[in-house]
């Protein structure tokens, strides 16, 4: 079993080749990309220690993204399920509607610092794409978003948003026409344009530096949550932190400040989509998009196709950092089907005022399964990391309505 290092940020627990636990991550990329990613690593290591840059980041988080996102108890759901207390960290209340806002904003800031004028990113659900388009506009960068044609049609509201913000949306029509193909095409674009373009990878995946930037950015969520918990409870109570996992950026941000806690004190639970679930279905380690990770493949080693109603979860791989958390036993992973996620949305929106997108609906499903089995003293916190409007059409098709 891999052992985590205490008091070392999770993103820094790699060796000089970028491997976590000798097994996950690395830099499996074309020679052409080596120098650009080395330059980016150096820049990032400098910036994360630079007080002026941190101030700028905090300024953007506060004034541009709207500051701290709310944390509150779901009284009706708690009563209805009759077990654990259920709390919501409503990251979807951020300007930008999802945790991807942190990561997109930081990438645009880094791009600016690097002196590059172009920024390129991949997107599945369109949340990262729309936030990157917004941040690029704000900072005067030219933005290209790569998106599978299947996702362009199922996440149309976000596509419109990106275009309105002035980004070029590049349709990707190869393979399954979803996120995995968008990431590949975006990386190809970077290989061909790395001299003037900054690559913003949409989740905590890719070569070492990309996943580090991502998880560093989203960790704002757990910094806030820690304070909010202490304010509510006077201490960090016995907790279960439930988060949906696509690539895993939102979970890493939600968990980052709690990694060093004993798992009996703060349990970390990741929820994948049932047919895109490398972490919870014992997938093998494979190399995808520049890193070794748990990933769905066929026997020959070809990357497998996945199926999820949720575009943000429809991805065969997982962050190398989740491989590390899984193999060290720090986090546990489970999954929820389309049907279960839809049922969760139905119940949550009947009882409460939040409107989760399909991605966090998977996390809510696990919360609904767990809560009745637990005691009143147990605290469940779910990261409600995305707003539902982008999935309105899908919810109406599947459930016949979208709540007010």
């Amino acid at each position, binding site marked *: 079993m891999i052992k985590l290092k205490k008091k070392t940020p999770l993103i820094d627990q790699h060796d000089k080749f970028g491997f976590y636990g000798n097994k996950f991550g690395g830099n499996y990329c074309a*020679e052409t990309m*080596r120098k650009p990613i080395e330059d980016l690593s150096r820049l990032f290591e400098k910036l994360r220690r630079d007080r002026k840059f941190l101030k700028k980041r905090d300024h953007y988080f506060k004034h541009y993204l709207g500051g701290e996102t709310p944390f509150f108890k779901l009284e009706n759901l708690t009563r209805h399920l009759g077990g654990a207390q259920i709390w919501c960290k409503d990251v979807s209340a951020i300007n930008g509607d999802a945790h991807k806002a942190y990561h997109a904003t930081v990438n645009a800031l880094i791009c600016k610092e690097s002196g590059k004028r172009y920024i390129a990113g991949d997107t599945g659900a369109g949340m990262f794409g729309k936030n990157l388009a917004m941040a690029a506009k704000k900072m005067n960068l030219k933005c290209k978003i790569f998106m599978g044609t299947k996702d362009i049609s199922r996440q149309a509201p976000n596509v419109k948003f990106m275009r309105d913000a002035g980004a070029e949306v590049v349709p990707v029509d190869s393979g399954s026409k979803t996120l995995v193909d968008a990431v590949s095409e975006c990386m190809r674009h970077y290989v061909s344009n790395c001299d003037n373009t900054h690559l913003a990878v949409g989740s905590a995946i890719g070569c070492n530096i990309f996943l580090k930037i991502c998880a560093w950015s989203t960790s704002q969520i757990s910094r806030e949550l820690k304070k909010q918990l202490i304010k509510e409870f006077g201490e960090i109570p016995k907790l279960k932190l439930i988060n949906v996992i696509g690539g895993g950026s939102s979970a890493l941000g939600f968990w980052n400040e709690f990694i060093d806690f004993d798992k009996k004190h703060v349990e970390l639970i990741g929820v994948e989509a049932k047919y895109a679930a490398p972490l919870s279905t014992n997938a093998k380690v494979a190399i*995808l*998009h520049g890193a070794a990770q748990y990933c769905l493949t066929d026997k*020959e080693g*070809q990357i497998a196709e996945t199926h999820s109603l949720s575009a943000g979860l429809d991805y065969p791989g997982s962050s190398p950092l989740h491989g590390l958390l899984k193999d060290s036993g720090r986090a546990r992973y489970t999954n929820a089907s389309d049907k279960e996620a839809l049922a969760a949305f139905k119940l949550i929106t009947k009882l409460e005022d939040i409107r989760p997108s399909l991605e966090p609906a998977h996390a809510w499903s696990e919360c609904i399964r767990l809560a009745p089995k637990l005691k009143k003293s147990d605290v469940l916190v779910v990261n409600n990391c995305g707003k539902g409007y982008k999935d309105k059409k899908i919810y109406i098709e599947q459930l016949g309505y979208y709540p007010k």
Partner: protein
Amino acid sequence: MKNSINNAFKVAKKENRPALISYTVCGDNTKDKSLQILNSISKDLDIAEWGIPHNCPTADGKDIQNSSYRALQNGIRLNDIFKLVKRFKKTKPSKPMILMGYYQMIFNYGDKKFIRKCKEVGVDGLIVVDLSFPDNKNFAELCKKNSICFVQLIAPTTTVKRMKEIIKSSHEMIYMISSISTTGSALKYSIKRIIKNYNVIKKIKPSKNVVIGFGITEKTISNLRSADGLVVGSAICREITRSLKDRQNPVTNVSKLVRKLKNKII
């Protein structure tokens, strides 16, 4: 046999021309067809490169993606590739064969098992697109122990310091990527700039065989003829795509194209 790659360069040098190296995807568009194509063009080639198709090829442009897609659609597997290499080497034992692919395909098969199998069927060299220096040190050593040439890549972004390290750990052949690009786009840099980059590498170690690849076509090949070797890939894959679309025989069309390429460098 051990030095067949070196020999190929020697022969070309004696004839005062660059070595001609083809890149096609094994199994494109079927297993047999890809072997027929290679057999037919091999008289004009000094070295043959076969791609191992992968469905997430992050450094390939559209043409090679299409070829890989066709090969995978027709069910090519790694063990088929080994069998086809064996068949090729049976009739052309002195023609060097280099396999090129993404590390995932090798990792999934097992490094040692893969290299052992390569040796057994007669593979002379390996290019692993996404296993770059220094992460490839162990793998390259394993290749060397098995008399397989591990081909290191150098890109326009590679610093001179890194270049020196790469050259130091390289085997018989080095692959220079012509421009900042995936495979298959037109040459992005001027010929002059490409030759200049090439000369930087040659100056560090003049005896090393350096080939140039990415974006070379019938139009540009003669301008680069001062190199030790030239790789043509996407242009050939494109010809296969065109032939299939026009319902023509890719074997004859590709053979004609390779003959033309050869004529431009002799």
